[in-house]
Protein backbone atom coordinates (compact mmCIF):
# COMPACT_ATOMS: atom_id res chain seq x y z
CA UNK A 1 0.00 0.00 0.00
CA UNK A 2 1.27 3.41 -0.88
CA UNK A 3 0.50 6.49 1.08
CA UNK A 4 0.87 9.75 -0.75
CA UNK A 5 3.33 11.77 1.24
CA UNK A 6 5.10 14.96 0.39
CA UNK A 7 4.69 17.31 -2.55
CA UNK A 8 6.11 14.93 -5.19
CA UNK A 9 3.49 12.25 -4.52
CA UNK A 10 0.64 14.71 -4.26
CA UNK A 11 1.65 16.36 -7.49
CA UNK A 12 1.03 13.27 -9.63
CA UNK A 13 -2.73 13.18 -9.59
CA UNK A 14 -3.61 16.58 -8.16
CA UNK A 15 -5.86 18.54 -10.53
CA UNK A 16 -4.18 21.47 -12.25
CA UNK A 17 -4.07 24.47 -9.98
CA UNK A 18 -6.78 26.96 -10.89
CA UNK A 19 -6.20 30.48 -9.70
CA UNK A 20 -7.20 33.76 -11.25
CA UNK A 21 -3.63 34.20 -12.48
CA UNK A 22 -3.18 30.76 -14.09
CA UNK A 23 -6.29 31.21 -16.18
CA UNK A 24 -5.51 34.68 -17.46
CA UNK A 25 -4.29 33.38 -20.87
CA UNK A 26 -7.47 31.33 -21.29
CA UNK A 27 -9.70 34.27 -20.35
CA UNK A 28 -7.71 36.56 -22.63
CA UNK A 29 -8.20 34.13 -25.52
CA UNK A 30 -11.93 33.96 -24.76
CA UNK A 31 -12.24 37.72 -24.68
CA UNK A 32 -10.32 38.03 -27.96
CA UNK A 33 -12.69 35.49 -29.53
CA UNK A 34 -15.76 37.46 -28.41
CA UNK A 35 -14.33 40.71 -29.80
CA UNK A 36 -13.41 39.06 -33.11
CA UNK A 37 -16.88 37.54 -33.46
CA UNK A 38 -18.45 40.91 -32.60
CA UNK A 39 -16.43 42.72 -35.27
CA UNK A 40 -17.42 40.19 -37.93
CA UNK A 41 -21.06 40.47 -36.82
CA UNK A 42 -21.06 44.27 -37.09
CA UNK A 43 -19.73 44.21 -40.66
CA UNK A 44 -22.23 41.49 -41.61
CA UNK A 45 -25.74 42.31 -42.80
CA UNK A 46 -28.25 42.59 -45.63
CA UNK A 47 -26.64 45.84 -46.79
CA UNK A 48 -23.04 45.33 -47.86
CA UNK A 49 -20.59 47.60 -46.07
CA UNK A 50 -16.91 46.64 -46.34
CA UNK A 51 -15.03 45.62 -43.18
CA UNK A 52 -12.65 48.55 -43.72
CA UNK A 53 -15.50 51.09 -43.81
CA UNK A 54 -17.06 49.37 -40.80
CA UNK A 55 -13.84 49.63 -38.81
CA UNK A 56 -13.53 53.28 -39.84
CA UNK A 57 -17.05 54.08 -38.61
CA UNK A 58 -16.50 52.28 -35.29
CA UNK A 59 -13.17 54.06 -34.71
CA UNK A 60 -14.74 57.40 -35.59
CA UNK A 61 -17.10 57.03 -32.62
CA UNK A 62 -14.11 56.88 -30.27
CA UNK A 63 -13.05 60.26 -28.93
CA UNK A 64 -10.20 62.10 -30.69
CA UNK A 65 -10.23 59.88 -33.78
CA UNK A 66 -11.58 61.18 -37.08
CA UNK A 67 -11.61 58.78 -40.02
CA UNK A 68 -14.23 60.46 -42.25
CA UNK A 69 -14.77 58.63 -45.57
CA UNK A 70 -18.27 57.09 -45.19
CA UNK A 71 -21.84 58.12 -45.89
CA UNK A 72 -24.42 59.15 -43.32
CA UNK A 73 -26.61 56.12 -44.00
CA UNK A 74 -23.64 53.78 -43.57
CA UNK A 75 -22.98 55.39 -40.22
CA UNK A 76 -26.65 54.98 -39.22
CA UNK A 77 -26.64 51.31 -40.24
CA UNK A 78 -23.40 50.45 -38.43
CA UNK A 79 -23.68 52.61 -35.34
CA UNK A 80 -27.45 52.87 -34.72
CA UNK A 81 -28.70 49.51 -36.01
CA UNK A 82 -25.96 46.86 -36.00
CA UNK A 83 -23.57 47.87 -33.21
CA UNK A 84 -26.21 48.05 -30.42
CA UNK A 85 -27.68 44.82 -31.71
CA UNK A 86 -24.37 42.94 -31.53
CA UNK A 87 -23.46 44.42 -28.14
CA UNK A 88 -26.88 43.55 -26.74
CA UNK A 89 -26.72 39.98 -28.07
CA UNK A 90 -23.32 39.62 -26.38
CA UNK A 91 -24.55 41.03 -23.07
CA UNK A 92 -27.68 38.87 -23.04
CA UNK A 93 -25.73 35.75 -23.99
CA UNK A 94 -23.19 36.40 -21.23
CA UNK A 95 -25.91 37.08 -18.64
CA UNK A 96 -27.92 33.97 -19.53
CA UNK A 97 -24.92 31.62 -19.62
CA UNK A 98 -23.41 32.98 -16.40
CA UNK A 99 -26.78 32.77 -14.63
CA UNK A 100 -27.27 29.25 -15.96
CA UNK A 101 -23.92 28.18 -14.53
CA UNK A 102 -24.84 29.79 -11.20
CA UNK A 103 -28.23 28.04 -11.07
CA UNK A 104 -26.58 24.69 -11.87
CA UNK A 105 -24.03 25.29 -9.12
CA UNK A 106 -26.58 26.19 -6.48
CA UNK A 107 -28.99 23.35 -7.26
CA UNK A 108 -26.20 20.84 -8.07
CA UNK A 109 -28.42 19.78 -10.91
CA UNK A 110 -27.58 19.55 -14.62
CA UNK A 111 -31.14 20.47 -15.63
CA UNK A 112 -31.11 23.78 -13.74
CA UNK A 113 -31.32 26.80 -16.03
CA UNK A 114 -31.96 30.51 -15.50
CA UNK A 115 -35.71 30.23 -16.19
CA UNK A 116 -36.15 27.53 -13.50
CA UNK A 117 -37.61 29.79 -10.82
CA UNK A 118 -40.16 31.57 -12.97
CA UNK A 119 -38.14 34.43 -14.50
CA UNK A 120 -39.37 33.66 -18.02
CA UNK A 121 -43.03 33.23 -17.08
CA UNK A 122 -43.04 36.31 -14.86
CA UNK A 123 -41.41 38.43 -17.53
CA UNK A 124 -43.91 37.21 -20.15
CA UNK A 125 -46.84 38.15 -17.91
CA UNK A 126 -45.37 41.62 -17.35
CA UNK A 127 -44.66 42.20 -21.04
CA UNK A 128 -48.05 40.81 -22.11
CA UNK A 129 -49.96 43.07 -19.71
CA UNK A 130 -48.28 46.10 -21.30
CA UNK A 131 -48.81 44.82 -24.84
CA UNK A 132 -52.58 44.31 -24.33
CA UNK A 133 -53.08 47.64 -22.57
CA UNK A 134 -55.21 50.16 -24.49
CA UNK A 135 -52.30 52.64 -24.69
CA UNK A 136 -50.06 51.83 -27.66
CA UNK A 137 -46.53 50.84 -26.71
CA UNK A 138 -45.07 53.33 -29.20
CA UNK A 139 -46.97 56.20 -27.56
CA UNK A 140 -44.33 56.27 -24.80
CA UNK A 141 -41.01 58.04 -25.16
CA UNK A 142 -39.18 54.96 -23.89
CA UNK A 143 -40.75 51.53 -24.39
CA UNK A 144 -42.55 50.38 -21.19
CA UNK A 145 -42.11 46.71 -22.11
CA UNK A 146 -38.62 46.13 -20.60
CA UNK A 147 -39.47 47.61 -17.16
CA UNK A 148 -42.76 45.65 -17.06
CA UNK A 149 -41.03 42.40 -18.03
CA UNK A 150 -38.31 43.04 -15.46
CA UNK A 151 -40.87 43.69 -12.70
CA UNK A 152 -42.80 40.54 -13.64
CA UNK A 153 -39.65 38.43 -13.54
CA UNK A 154 -38.54 39.75 -10.13
CA UNK A 155 -42.02 39.29 -8.64
CA UNK A 156 -42.19 35.69 -9.91
CA UNK A 157 -38.82 34.69 -8.41
CA UNK A 158 -39.53 36.48 -5.10
CA UNK A 159 -42.87 34.65 -4.95
CA UNK A 160 -41.24 31.26 -5.63
CA UNK A 161 -38.62 31.93 -2.96
CA UNK A 162 -41.07 33.03 -0.29
CA UNK A 163 -43.49 30.17 -1.05
CA UNK A 164 -40.69 27.59 -0.72
CA UNK A 165 -39.62 28.96 2.65
CA UNK A 166 -40.17 26.54 5.54
CA UNK A 167 -39.20 27.60 9.08
CA UNK A 168 -36.63 30.08 7.85
CA UNK A 169 -34.89 27.60 5.53
CA UNK A 170 -35.42 27.19 1.80
CA UNK A 171 -34.91 23.56 0.72
CA UNK A 172 -33.65 23.29 -2.87
CA UNK A 173 -36.34 20.79 -3.91
CA UNK A 174 -39.18 23.01 -2.60
CA UNK A 175 -37.67 25.99 -4.41
CA UNK A 176 -37.56 24.15 -7.74
CA UNK A 177 -41.13 22.91 -7.34
CA UNK A 178 -42.41 26.37 -6.38
CA UNK A 179 -40.63 27.78 -9.44
CA UNK A 180 -42.17 25.18 -11.72
CA UNK A 181 -45.66 25.86 -10.30
CA UNK A 182 -45.28 29.64 -10.72
CA UNK A 183 -44.02 29.13 -14.27
CA UNK A 184 -47.12 27.09 -15.12
CA UNK A 185 -49.43 29.78 -13.75
CA UNK A 186 -47.57 32.48 -15.70
CA UNK A 187 -47.59 30.52 -18.95
CA UNK A 188 -51.33 29.84 -18.61
CA UNK A 189 -52.08 33.52 -17.99
CA UNK A 190 -50.07 34.54 -21.07
CA UNK A 191 -51.73 31.90 -23.26
CA UNK A 192 -55.17 33.02 -22.09
CA UNK A 193 -54.43 36.70 -22.70
CA UNK A 194 -52.90 35.92 -26.10
CA UNK A 195 -56.06 34.19 -27.26
CA UNK A 196 -58.42 36.72 -25.68
CA UNK A 197 -56.79 39.84 -27.11
CA UNK A 198 -56.36 38.38 -30.56
CA UNK A 199 -55.42 41.66 -32.23
CA UNK A 200 -52.28 41.70 -30.07
CA UNK A 201 -51.43 38.00 -30.43
CA UNK A 202 -48.67 38.65 -32.95
CA UNK A 203 -47.05 41.36 -30.82
CA UNK A 204 -47.07 39.08 -27.76
CA UNK A 205 -45.78 36.09 -29.72
CA UNK A 206 -43.01 38.23 -31.21
CA UNK A 207 -41.91 39.26 -27.75
CA UNK A 208 -42.12 35.74 -26.33
CA UNK A 209 -40.03 34.31 -29.18
CA UNK A 210 -37.33 36.82 -28.38
CA UNK A 211 -34.71 38.49 -30.53
CA UNK A 212 -32.68 41.61 -31.13
CA UNK A 213 -34.60 43.07 -34.06
CA UNK A 214 -35.31 46.37 -32.32
CA UNK A 215 -32.14 46.58 -30.23
CA UNK A 216 -30.90 50.09 -29.51
CA UNK A 217 -28.42 51.75 -27.16
CA UNK A 218 -31.15 52.29 -24.53
CA UNK A 219 -31.55 48.51 -24.22
CA UNK A 220 -27.78 48.18 -23.85
CA UNK A 221 -27.83 50.80 -21.10
CA UNK A 222 -30.64 48.92 -19.31
CA UNK A 223 -28.88 45.54 -19.42
CA UNK A 224 -25.26 46.52 -18.74
CA UNK A 225 -25.44 47.47 -15.03
CA UNK A 226 -27.14 44.19 -14.12
CA UNK A 227 -24.53 42.12 -15.93
CA UNK A 228 -21.70 44.07 -14.28
CA UNK A 229 -23.26 43.56 -10.85
CA UNK A 230 -23.90 39.87 -11.54
CA UNK A 231 -20.30 39.29 -12.63
CA UNK A 232 -18.87 41.19 -9.65
CA UNK A 233 -20.99 39.23 -7.19
CA UNK A 234 -20.89 35.78 -8.81
CA UNK A 235 -17.21 35.44 -9.76
CA UNK A 236 -15.90 35.75 -6.16
CA UNK A 237 -18.49 33.12 -5.09
CA UNK A 238 -16.99 30.52 -7.42
CA UNK A 239 -14.70 29.08 -4.72
CA UNK A 240 -17.51 28.64 -2.20
CA UNK A 241 -19.74 27.13 -4.86
CA UNK A 242 -17.00 24.59 -5.59
CA UNK A 243 -17.21 23.54 -1.95
CA UNK A 244 -21.01 23.42 -2.14
CA UNK A 245 -20.76 20.81 -4.90
CA UNK A 246 -20.06 18.40 -2.04
CA UNK A 247 -23.03 17.39 0.01
CA UNK A 248 -24.88 20.35 1.57
CA UNK A 249 -24.10 19.06 5.07
CA UNK A 250 -20.42 18.64 4.27
CA UNK A 251 -20.26 22.16 2.88
CA UNK A 252 -21.85 23.39 6.12
CA UNK A 253 -19.26 21.51 8.19
CA UNK A 254 -16.52 23.12 6.12
CA UNK A 255 -17.83 26.51 7.21
CA UNK A 256 -19.92 27.49 4.19
CA UNK A 257 -23.04 29.46 4.98
CA UNK A 258 -25.18 27.44 2.57
CA UNK A 259 -28.50 29.28 2.94
CA UNK A 260 -26.96 32.72 2.62
CA UNK A 261 -24.75 31.78 -0.34
CA UNK A 262 -27.73 30.25 -2.12
CA UNK A 263 -29.85 33.36 -1.57
CA UNK A 264 -27.12 35.76 -2.76
CA UNK A 265 -26.21 33.70 -5.84
CA UNK A 266 -29.81 33.03 -6.87
CA UNK A 267 -30.88 36.64 -6.35
CA UNK A 268 -27.98 37.97 -8.42
CA UNK A 269 -28.39 35.42 -11.20
CA UNK A 270 -32.15 36.03 -11.31
CA UNK A 271 -31.71 39.80 -11.54
CA UNK A 272 -29.23 39.40 -14.41
CA UNK A 273 -31.61 36.99 -16.17
CA UNK A 274 -34.58 39.32 -15.63
CA UNK A 275 -32.63 42.21 -17.15
CA UNK A 276 -31.56 40.06 -20.11
CA UNK A 277 -35.09 38.77 -20.72
CA UNK A 278 -36.61 42.25 -20.41
CA UNK A 279 -34.58 43.55 -23.39
CA UNK A 280 -34.54 40.42 -25.55
CA UNK A 281 -37.57 38.26 -24.79
CA UNK A 282 -37.29 34.57 -24.04
CA UNK A 283 -34.24 33.00 -25.63
CA UNK A 284 -33.96 29.39 -24.58
CA UNK A 285 -31.09 26.93 -24.65
CA UNK A 286 -28.23 29.41 -24.01
CA UNK A 287 -28.48 29.36 -20.23
CA UNK A 288 -28.82 25.60 -20.09
CA UNK A 289 -26.32 24.39 -22.62
CA UNK A 290 -23.46 26.90 -22.79
CA UNK A 291 -22.32 26.14 -19.21
CA UNK A 292 -22.48 22.42 -19.99
CA UNK A 293 -20.42 22.86 -23.15
CA UNK A 294 -17.82 24.84 -21.18
CA UNK A 295 -17.88 22.20 -18.44
CA UNK A 296 -17.22 19.44 -20.98
CA UNK A 297 -14.33 21.36 -22.53
CA UNK A 298 -12.67 22.90 -19.48
CA UNK A 299 -13.85 20.97 -16.44
CA UNK A 300 -16.25 21.70 -13.60
CA UNK A 301 -14.24 24.22 -11.53
CA UNK A 302 -16.53 27.22 -11.13
CA UNK A 303 -13.60 29.65 -10.98
CA UNK A 304 -13.04 28.77 -14.62
CA UNK A 305 -16.59 27.84 -15.52
CA UNK A 306 -18.15 31.20 -14.59
CA UNK A 307 -15.99 33.54 -16.69
CA UNK A 308 -15.75 31.12 -19.61
CA UNK A 309 -19.53 30.55 -19.63
CA UNK A 310 -20.09 34.31 -19.81
CA UNK A 311 -17.66 34.68 -22.72
CA UNK A 312 -18.97 31.57 -24.46
CA UNK A 313 -22.58 32.70 -24.08
CA UNK A 314 -21.72 36.10 -25.55
CA UNK A 315 -19.95 34.62 -28.60
CA UNK A 316 -22.67 32.02 -29.13
CA UNK A 317 -25.57 34.48 -29.08
CA UNK A 318 -23.78 37.00 -31.33
CA UNK A 319 -23.25 34.26 -33.93
CA UNK A 320 -26.83 32.99 -33.53
CA UNK A 321 -28.15 36.52 -34.08
CA UNK A 322 -25.99 36.89 -37.18
CA UNK A 323 -27.61 33.74 -38.56
CA UNK A 324 -31.09 34.93 -37.52
CA UNK A 325 -30.82 38.11 -39.55
CA UNK A 326 -29.03 36.75 -42.61
CA UNK A 327 -30.61 33.38 -43.48
CA UNK A 328 -33.50 35.14 -45.22
CA UNK A 329 -33.03 38.88 -45.80
CA UNK A 330 -36.78 39.49 -46.04
CA UNK A 331 -37.77 37.65 -42.89
CA UNK A 332 -35.96 37.35 -39.61
CA UNK A 333 -35.79 33.84 -38.18
CA UNK A 334 -36.60 33.80 -34.43
CA UNK A 335 -33.26 33.53 -32.65
CA UNK A 336 -34.53 30.81 -30.28
CA UNK A 337 -35.01 28.57 -33.31
CA UNK A 338 -31.38 29.14 -34.32
CA UNK A 339 -29.94 28.60 -30.85
CA UNK A 340 -31.71 25.24 -30.61
CA UNK A 341 -31.27 23.97 -34.18
CA UNK A 342 -27.61 24.93 -34.45
CA UNK A 343 -26.68 24.62 -30.79
CA UNK A 344 -28.19 21.23 -29.99
CA UNK A 345 -26.25 19.13 -32.55
CA UNK A 346 -23.03 20.91 -31.59
CA UNK A 347 -23.69 20.18 -27.94
CA UNK A 348 -24.54 16.54 -28.60
CA UNK A 349 -21.28 16.17 -30.52
CA UNK A 350 -19.39 17.56 -27.52
CA UNK A 351 -21.29 15.24 -25.21
CA UNK A 352 -20.33 12.19 -27.28
CA UNK A 353 -16.69 13.17 -27.70
CA UNK A 354 -15.80 14.66 -24.35
CA UNK A 355 -14.78 11.39 -22.72
CA UNK A 356 -15.95 12.55 -19.34
CA UNK A 357 -19.31 12.66 -17.58
CA UNK A 358 -21.34 15.74 -18.48
CA UNK A 359 -21.96 16.82 -14.91
CA UNK A 360 -19.25 15.80 -12.46
CA UNK A 361 -19.95 17.55 -9.16
CA UNK A 362 -16.48 17.85 -7.64
CA UNK A 363 -13.82 19.79 -9.53
Amino acid sequence: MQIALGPAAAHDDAPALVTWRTQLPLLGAGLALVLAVALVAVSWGTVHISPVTTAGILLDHLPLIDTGAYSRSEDAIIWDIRAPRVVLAGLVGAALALSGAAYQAVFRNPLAEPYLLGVAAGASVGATLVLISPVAVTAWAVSPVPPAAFAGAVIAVALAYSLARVNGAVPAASLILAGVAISSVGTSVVTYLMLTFNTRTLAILNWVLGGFNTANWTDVAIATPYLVVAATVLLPHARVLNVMQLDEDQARQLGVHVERTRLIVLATASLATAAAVSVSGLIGFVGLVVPHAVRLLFGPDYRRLFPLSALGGAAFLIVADMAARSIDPAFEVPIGVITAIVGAPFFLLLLRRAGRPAFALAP
Partner: protein
Amino acid sequence: MRNIAGDGGGQAYPQLTQEAIISANPDVIVLADEEFGVTIESVKQRPGWDAIAAVQNDRIYSIDPDIISRPGPRIVDALEQLARFIYPDRFS
Protein backbone atom coordinates in the same frame (compact mmCIF):
# COMPACT_ATOMS: atom_id res chain seq x y z
CA MET B 1 -40.23 58.03 -58.13
CA ARG B 2 -39.68 54.34 -57.43
CA ASN B 3 -41.06 52.08 -54.66
CA ILE B 4 -38.16 50.71 -52.57
CA ALA B 5 -40.20 47.56 -51.84
CA GLY B 6 -41.49 47.42 -55.42
CA ASP B 7 -40.09 44.04 -56.42
CA GLY B 8 -41.10 42.63 -53.04
CA GLY B 9 -38.45 39.93 -53.15
CA GLY B 10 -41.09 37.57 -54.50
CA GLN B 11 -43.36 38.10 -51.50
CA ALA B 12 -46.89 39.51 -51.29
CA TYR B 13 -46.14 41.38 -48.06
CA PRO B 14 -42.37 41.97 -48.05
CA GLN B 15 -40.62 42.79 -44.79
CA LEU B 16 -37.56 44.97 -45.18
CA THR B 17 -34.79 45.11 -42.61
CA GLN B 18 -34.13 48.49 -41.03
CA GLU B 19 -30.72 48.66 -42.67
CA ALA B 20 -32.20 47.93 -46.10
CA ILE B 21 -34.60 50.87 -45.65
CA ILE B 22 -31.86 53.23 -44.43
CA SER B 23 -29.63 52.18 -47.30
CA ALA B 24 -32.42 52.67 -49.90
CA ASN B 25 -32.87 56.17 -48.44
CA PRO B 26 -36.49 56.86 -49.51
CA ASP B 27 -37.56 60.46 -50.24
CA VAL B 28 -41.13 59.83 -49.07
CA ILE B 29 -42.50 57.45 -46.43
CA VAL B 30 -46.23 56.64 -46.32
CA LEU B 31 -47.65 54.96 -43.21
CA ALA B 32 -50.84 52.94 -43.25
CA ASP B 33 -50.55 51.56 -39.74
CA GLU B 34 -51.12 54.52 -37.45
CA GLU B 35 -53.98 52.59 -35.81
CA PHE B 36 -51.39 50.14 -34.51
CA GLY B 37 -49.24 52.79 -32.91
CA VAL B 38 -46.74 53.48 -35.70
CA THR B 39 -46.99 57.26 -35.91
CA ILE B 40 -45.10 59.87 -37.90
CA GLU B 41 -43.42 60.93 -34.66
CA SER B 42 -42.45 57.38 -33.66
CA VAL B 43 -40.91 56.77 -37.09
CA LYS B 44 -38.89 60.00 -36.82
CA GLN B 45 -37.54 58.90 -33.46
CA ARG B 46 -36.30 55.49 -34.59
CA PRO B 47 -32.55 55.27 -34.03
CA GLY B 48 -30.61 55.72 -37.24
CA TRP B 49 -33.62 56.86 -39.28
CA ASP B 50 -32.45 60.48 -39.16
CA ALA B 51 -30.12 59.49 -42.01
CA ILE B 52 -33.16 59.00 -44.31
CA ALA B 53 -34.09 61.87 -46.67
CA ALA B 54 -37.82 61.53 -45.94
CA VAL B 55 -37.16 62.04 -42.22
CA GLN B 56 -34.79 64.96 -42.76
CA ASN B 57 -37.24 66.74 -45.12
CA ASP B 58 -40.36 65.98 -43.06
CA ARG B 59 -41.91 63.92 -45.83
CA ILE B 60 -43.54 61.17 -43.77
CA TYR B 61 -47.28 60.90 -44.38
CA SER B 62 -50.07 58.84 -42.91
CA ILE B 63 -52.89 57.38 -45.00
CA ASP B 64 -56.19 55.75 -44.03
CA PRO B 65 -55.57 51.96 -44.25
CA ASP B 66 -59.24 51.40 -45.17
CA ILE B 67 -58.83 53.12 -48.53
CA ILE B 68 -55.37 51.84 -49.47
CA SER B 69 -55.34 48.27 -48.16
CA ARG B 70 -58.78 47.16 -49.45
CA PRO B 71 -59.43 46.31 -53.08
CA GLY B 72 -62.49 48.41 -53.89
CA PRO B 73 -63.64 51.59 -55.62
CA ARG B 74 -62.06 53.75 -52.91
CA ILE B 75 -58.60 52.67 -54.07
CA VAL B 76 -58.79 55.56 -56.54
CA ASP B 77 -59.07 58.00 -53.63
CA ALA B 78 -55.97 56.38 -52.16
CA LEU B 79 -54.17 56.85 -55.47
CA GLU B 80 -55.00 60.57 -55.44
CA GLN B 81 -53.77 60.81 -51.83
CA LEU B 82 -50.48 59.15 -52.77
CA ALA B 83 -50.07 61.50 -55.72
CA ARG B 84 -50.55 64.48 -53.38
CA PHE B 85 -47.90 63.09 -51.00
CA ILE B 86 -45.37 62.34 -53.71
CA TYR B 87 -45.90 65.33 -56.07
CA PRO B 88 -47.29 68.09 -53.81
CA ASP B 89 -46.26 70.82 -56.29
CA ARG B 90 -48.64 69.46 -58.99
CA PHE B 91 -51.59 70.08 -56.68
CA SER B 92 -50.79 73.58 -55.52
